[in-house]
């Protein structure tokens, strides 16, 4: 039998359903890969091999009883540590939540378990999802399984904040993983590691039980080997949830059944403002290649303008920290998580000590920025202005989508960078999200698919942004690229 860990979601689901192998065999194979890679890649904060086996046994029992197996029947997955999992430590990769075991299960993870998936473990990530390189985790960096082809073996960033997810999927530790995307946290790590990932329309996936970073931007989505696997998993994750007031009350389309790489009659927009200085030449070349692939798929490619693009990143770095500064106020040492109570400390001193010890430097930086931009006297100049920019960016997209069906752009301005290369320059780090953030601000569905390797042998991703609720259009354009890119590269196993 071929190595089961080479299989993706669809192949595992179909293989288990047909009886080619059992779900338990699949879970055991991935459990073994997880254990073997943990020391080198640090992709997981907690591994849960027993949970994976239990879920697999349940799937095998259902099959034996002739019952339906669910959309994710027999598929073990990795769960980003931002999702609350009942009885399993949930930390958002922070010290302040170290040891926290929720009594509840997030809506999205529950839907996945209900669909027959099993949990291999809780994936490492940037602390509170703040970061683009997975270097802000309290539990250590995630090491990308990819290496440059220069023989230097410099450890590379898996992207962030869903860096554990991207590393684990690309290293075959799991066939798919959940991610969350606030300003590119699914798409950028997917691009860095040669996998696919989709952030659906804001409101498609319930935020209930996901540790909040920036509520108006946070969206969960799947990260997997290919477009079909993303479609399958997104179907299992999405759906209206009355417990989330921003949840979309719409039926979940059958995205997998609707996959179609024939783009005849479709129009693809290429935004001229995304041709920015500092964008890597290989990235630009892959973008041009992407344009040709979509033409080949039958689409008409149109030059479009998204005039307010240059304001998106600054606006994002006001709105997201503002919301975060408030969302993270609940981590105060009073009810759960870390409490640092120096001798004789009063309430204020306990807050200060707890939060100083419990939050990492990047989280503190964003809390400070967010507190500042909401302060009396600065609110209008920053927060109000940023909200106006956000509206203008939405208008840009609306105008563009009057003409085109999807927009094609690079996912990130560079391929994966080395760990430590950017930590001293937060602004350079933030710039990595420049292509991802506009779709986040507008709440649009957007995905990254692998497009090829750069001159260093590292993966590059192409981003497709779609109209609100049109995940199908995004997936189909992604499929058209995927089928032409023929991306088969995978990191050579060195761990």
């Amino acid at each position: 039998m071929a190595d089961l860990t080479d299989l993706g979601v669809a192949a595992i689901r179909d293989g288990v359903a047909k009886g080619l192998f059992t779900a338990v065999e699949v879970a055991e194979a991935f459990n073994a890969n997880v254990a073997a890679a943990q020391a080198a890649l640090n992709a997981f904060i907690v591994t849960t091999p027993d949970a994976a086996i239990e879920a697999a046994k349940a799937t095998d029992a259902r099959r034996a009883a002739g019952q339906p197996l669910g959309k994710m029947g027999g598929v073990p997955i990795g769960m980003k540590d931002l999702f609350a999992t009942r009885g399993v430590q949930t930390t958002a990769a922070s010290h302040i939540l170290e040891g926290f075991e929720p009594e509840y299960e997030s809506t999205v993870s529950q839907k996945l378990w209900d669909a027959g998936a099993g949990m291999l473990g809780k994936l490492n990530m940037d602390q509170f999802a703040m970061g683009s390189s997975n270097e802000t985790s309290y539990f250590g960096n995630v090491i990308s399984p990819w290496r440059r082809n220069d023989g230097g073996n410099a450890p590379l960033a898996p992207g962030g904040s869903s860096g554990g997810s991207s590393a684990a999927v690309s290293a075959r530790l799991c066939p798919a993983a959940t991610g969350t995307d606030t300003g590119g946290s699914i798409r950028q790590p997917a691009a860095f590691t040669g996998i696919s990932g989709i952030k659906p329309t804001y409101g498609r996936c319930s935020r209930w039980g996901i540790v909040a970073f920036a509520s108006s931007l946070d969206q969960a989505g799947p990260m997997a080997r290919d477009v079909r696997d993303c479609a399958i998993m997104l179907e299992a994750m999405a759906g209206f949830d009355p417990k989330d007031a921003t949840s979309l009350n719409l039926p979940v389309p059958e995205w997998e059944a609707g996959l179609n790489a024939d783009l005849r009659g479709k129009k693809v927009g290429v935004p001229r403002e995304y041709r920015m200085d500092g964008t890597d030449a290989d990235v630009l070349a892959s973008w041009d290649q992407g344009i040709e692939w979509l033409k080949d798929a039958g689409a008409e490619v149109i030059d479009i303008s998204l005039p307010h693009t240059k304001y998106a990143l600054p606006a994002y770095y006001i709105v997201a920290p503002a919301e975060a500064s408030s969302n993270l106020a609940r981590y105060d040492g009073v009810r759960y998580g870390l409490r640092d109570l120096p001798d004789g400390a009063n309430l204020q001193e306990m807050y200060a000590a707890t939060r100083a010890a419990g939050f990492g430097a990047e989280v503190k930086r964003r809390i400070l920025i967010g507190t500042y931009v909401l302060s009396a006297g600065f609110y209008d100049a920053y927060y109000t202005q940023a909200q106006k920019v956000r509206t203008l960016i939405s208008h840009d997209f609306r105008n563009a989508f009057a003409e085109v069906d999807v927009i094609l752009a690079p996912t990130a301005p560079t391929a994966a960078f080395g760990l430590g290369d950017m930590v001293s320059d937060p602004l350079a780090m933030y710039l990595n999200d420049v292509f991802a953030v506009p779709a986040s601000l507008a709440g649009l569905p957007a995905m990254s698919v692998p497009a090829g390797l750069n001159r260093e042998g590292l993966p590059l991703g192409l981003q497709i942004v779609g109209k609100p609720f049109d995940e199908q259009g995004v997936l189909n354009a992604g499929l058209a690229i995927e089928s032409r890119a023929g991306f088969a590269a995978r990191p050579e196993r060195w761990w």
Partner: protein
Amino acid sequence: MSNYRIHGATGEWEVVIGLEVHAQVTSNSKLFSGAATAFGAEPNTQVSLVDAAMPGMLPVPNRECIRQAVRTGLAINAQINKWSRFDRKNYFYADLPQGYQISQLYHPLVGEGSLEVVLDPKDPEGSTKTIGIERIHVEQDAGKLMHDQHPTMSYVDLNRSGVALMEIVSRPDMRSPAEAGAYLAKLRTILRYVGSCDGNMDQGSMRADVNVSVRRPGEPFGTRTETKNVNSVRFVMAVVESEARRQVDLIEDGGAVVQETRLYDPDKNETRSMRSKEDAHDYRYFPDPDLLPLELDDAFVEKCRASLPELPDAKRHRYEGALGLSPYNAGVLTAEVETARWFEALLTATAAKAGKGEAEVAKQASNWLISELFGALNKLGKGLDDSPVSPEDGAELLALVADGTISGSIAKQVLEKMLESGDGAAAIVEREGLKQTTDTGAIEAAVDQVLAANADKVAEYKAGKEALFGFFVGQAMKAMQGKGNPQLVNQVLKSRLG
């Protein structure tokens, strides 16, 4: 208008008052969670994951709380904002699990409204004043700290955390303690009529932040202080009085009023500083990104409007007009929704028993309720809510008076026995033989006996001292143990003395 003045050493001062009233919305569950809201439950037994601000928990607006706030707004003739929004008010405190309170700063649910207050409740037709209401917004309550459970630690009870409050903000339109008291009392009455708040001030369901400043009459507003969480009408009036006095003394001594938050100490009847503007929080209000704007359609608002009961002013006018009650009676009967409800039940039952229209029996019923039942209940330390006598029971008693079965004075005795025993009026009258005598022979015998025993007074009467007639009636009634029909006793006496 009020002529209330504070007489300072340097002349007269006027007090300016505005009230921010926090009223707990009557609802089985909290504003943004499904947790229960019962008063007096064991600490931390009415707390959901949302109320405890566990990671990843989200608020979902409770439709019933919104409905009640809209109904309240309609009851004060306020503008209902069909588009409103929730904001976060950020500050750290141990009783605030989220680290922010969800409130409405920028776009409240209810806009400009007003209510009319009567300055002397005994004189409802007397001087009235319209007090402007700036807005009503809905927000979450905080939890409660308990400092007396442990020598060095404070405990937190989150039962109240997330409970829905309406903050009802008046204009600075009040000018005397009496006006402030009348406004709060009237607001409470309306809330209880509407059913949007139980108005139980001693349980904290309703409390007021009292803004007070003083000025020379006619001059611009002075600097105000805000005294927090005052929980009775009487205390609000006391706060205004003592705080205004304090401010006048301060200014006249060459000092200046500092804008600050103060607390009221009822034992000492004084306010004291809690925190000044300098250490005021910067609350960093911003729209709550977990919640979409609240959009109401016309149908919802109209449904709220249609669900409103008859409100106290309208009811009072109806009692005076259609029922012909005195302004005083109408005022007393409409001051509390329970009283009005009780009265209306009594009225319906009394009219039914008498086979008459309600207007015809209204005076009798209202007089009996106010002068007889209230007094009797008061002696027992009871109110209408725990009265052993129901409106049906009262109607039965009134029917016995109306049809001449018993006299008014016997009715008082019967009521006392009803309250003691819980038995019905007819049964008591039957059992105790209290039925009124209309037997002319017996009455004549009693009258003759009285006249014979008081020959001297008969002579005085005949000499012109007509006031003695009442004495003879009283003696005759007494001789008959009160059971003589008063009209017949009168008739017989007149003919004998005539």
